[in-house]
């Protein structure tokens, strides 16, 4: 059951090679093997969005992709995008507006929001709500999150 495959990927700019159980999900690999615990596990069926990460520039659910499928891929997590300062403005807007409470959904929420922001397009509140409609937040009621994203997108 625990057949392992040698897998190599670039995670937050650093190349890692590990023997990975074939059935291990990418988010479990990041958390358990690499200690990158910023990507959270909420539902393990792709609904809640807490494990949203970036693979080869696209956001994906870390719970719906196997780690071995990321062989040869470029993986970016909340830790990497925080250190590279790509999320700096968005994080500052979230902080200023209290667009997070418990913070469990926040890394995934930031990844989903940044996916829209980096297109450089303006967006309406409805479009912002649609963009994060796959990211479950139980604390905020979403309004402050929409406000924060809107502030960064529309200045």
């Amino acid at each position, binding site marked *: *059951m*625990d057949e392992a495959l040698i897998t190599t990927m670039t995670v937050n700019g650093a190349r890692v090679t590990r023997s990975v*159980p074939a*059935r*291990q999900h990418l988010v479990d690999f990041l*958390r358990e093997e690499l*200690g*990158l*615990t*910023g*990507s*959270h*596990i*909420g*539902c*393990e*069926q792709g*609904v*809640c969005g*807490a494990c949203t990460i970036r693979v080869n520039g696209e956001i994906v659910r870390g719970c719906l992709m196997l780690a071995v499928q990321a062989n040869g891929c470029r993986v970016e*997590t*909340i*830790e990497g995008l*925080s250190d590279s300062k790509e999320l700096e403005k968005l*994080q500052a807007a*979230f*902080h*200023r*507006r*209290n667009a*997070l*409470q*418990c*913070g*469990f*959904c*926040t*890394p995934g929420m*930031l990844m989903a929001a940044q996916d829209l922001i980096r297109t450089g397009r303006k967006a309406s*509140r409805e479009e912002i*709500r*649609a963009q*994060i*409609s*796959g*990211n*479950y*937040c*139980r*604390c*905020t*009621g*979403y*309004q*402050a*999150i*929409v406000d924060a994203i809107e502030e960064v997108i529309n200045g």
Partner: protein
Amino acid sequence: MGKAELPLHAPGTQVDKGYIGESVPRPNAQRLLQGRGAFTDDLRFPRLAHVAFFRSPYAHAKIKKLELKNALRSPGVIGIFDGRAVAEYCKPWVGVLAHLKGIKSPPQHAVAIERACWQGEACAAVVAESRTQAEDAVQLIEAEWEELPVVVDMEASLRGDVVIHEELKDNVCFKREHDTGGVDEAFAGADVVVEDTFHFGRHTGVCPEGRAILADYNAAEHSLTVYHATQAPHMMQDIFSRHLGIPEANVRVIARDLGGSYGIKVHVYADEMATAALSVMLRRPVKFVADRLESFVSDIHAREHRAKVRLAVSKEGQILAFDLDDLTAIGPYSVYPRTSGIEGNQVVNLTGGPYRHQKYKARMHVVFTNKNLCCQYRAVGHPIAVALTEGIVDLAAQKLGMDPAEFRRKNLIPDDAYPYTFPSGIKFEKLSHHKALDLLLKIMDYQKLREEQEALRARSVFRGIGLAAMIEVTNPSPAFYGVGGARISAQDGATLRLEPTGMVTVMCGVTEQGQGTEGIFAQIAASAVGVSIEKVKVITGDTGVTPYGGGTWASRGAGIGGEAVLLAGRALRSNMLDVAACILKVEKAELDIENNQIINKLTREPKLPLEELGRIAYFRPDTLPVDFQSELTVTRHYTPRQYGFTFTNGIQASLAEVDPDTGFVRLLKHWCVEDAGTVINPMLVDEQIRGGVVQGIGAALYEECLYGPDGQLLNGNMADYLVPMSGEMPDIVCAHIETPTLQSQLGAKGVGEAGTAGAPGAVMNAVNDALAPLGARVTRMPFTPERILQALKKV
């Protein structure tokens, strides 16, 4: 009352307004924004073992045999334990309280022995080197079951055709009757009597983070350190101590970051007690994290109520009397230690709460069923009481042809009637229903919305406006739990310490789950001491460090913990001035503290930076008079005592549009006016309300734990159990009245549950207002498209 008049900055007090009333961002949010928080599942320990549970597939069945042979041979398995094995280390519990007269419940074990009473009850614990391996082994356990008759429906449970726990004789866990007298006469003499039955769907908290516990037993010390996603660390310390037989001083409970709690994480869970026991049994750290499927079948559920209510009204529109009959089902056990009788009890306490009638009769039954356990979830009882009250009030207004806002104005308790005793026996110190109603109608432009609604109806667009006035229990005294024998602290303490560098460390028994507790404590401490907010560091959630306290529940953090911080801050300020007076060789009365400096009170001229005060006090006390000892760590406590609860009030409004062809409800806007007393941080207060409103909207429109006739949960995953997502949620406008409680210096009441309390009633009334011209009405939450189409007789 304007901010200048609040008790905190009343003339003669030593404290500047400082940060009170300012929207200061929470310092502790930074780590969460970078994914660098420390949730329980993020912790890493040497020799950490993982537990997965073998759970009953049946709602009610005898465990005839558990064959563990194959499971024990599975890779990585450390041990497998049944209920008897775990019971040797963990005593069972009974979820009853002395002040809920007659409440009964059988003993509950950490792991079921002989019999499972709901689908999902843990029947064996598998410990392995990884969670994956533990789950693999769970699949290999072979069980022989004997299915027993199942009680699913609460009316059937009350009838008692099948009794779940034979030794209890019937299925009634708790019942309460209340009667002021004169109710039947009031109904007999009323011009108008309206009656309806409201159904509330069983739903649950769906915390983003599953329940999580990491227990680390040290055999050499006979000590247990528990990293626990809990709202009440001291309560759990006591419980681990008593049920595992470890001296309380040897048990330390640490609650780091919590991924949502909302009342879900304030209870004793069997699988968590088992995890702690397993750590003792195996003498190594053991972790359990509930996955999403487990969360649905084992996190507490709430709110399954059937409430029949009658209202007697005069033709002038005066409410004369309420008559309530509530029935609620709680699963097979009353939850420990708060009991599952509280929600129904609250419904009796709070029904009709905003209004000034004096005649009230209520009957309430709490019954057992073979479904997952129910207990206190955010706003306990309030959403039921508010919705059934406001639903029947709207029906009366409709029958009299009165505008719902006018009807409320006529009946809300006058703002000058306080102190006031409500016919259920609860006492209000000071509420502001009329101010709140006026403000609500103004911010929503009620009249214009009514005109717009009328115009749109002509074009077959069906919009509804729903109002829901509410009262909310906050800052509970020992009357809530302590008097009933529960070892749950109603008081909280705060310790403040001046560090040598002039920093202030705050330690408090109230915990942080993201609502901003640590942020407001920093604001209060900085204001009370006279330092800037970046000089304050707050520590919560560790029984080894903080003063004893109750933790976070019943909207008590700001009002109780905040008051303790304020009192400790004032005491520390005074002690710091004693030291400064010695150093500067002047009278203490000449000095004050402002902006991290000792200053001259009159000229406001800086005299001594606090880091210099700290340096001398800690490192050169030899330069101070020989009989002087500085005391730069102080602790103060606070317990509300004058009233059983500090009530807040508020009113919400919902604007909804119903599509009569599809049955879909679109929420266009929501408003909430709340009087939470002194507002410490307006931004955090608004965000508490907004989040709470959205939880209430979930109850009204989407969320329900659906059970089949065999007691199987049909939608126990996030694809089938719908929660509010960003696309469907309206913007929510918040506004405030500030009537500080005079019981405390701070004047803060509480706000954590207000949104959830009022939103379901407001949405229900909006939907029914939209449906009114179509002759339809809904009273069974959640209002799914199917139920709305049924009401419209389209399906």
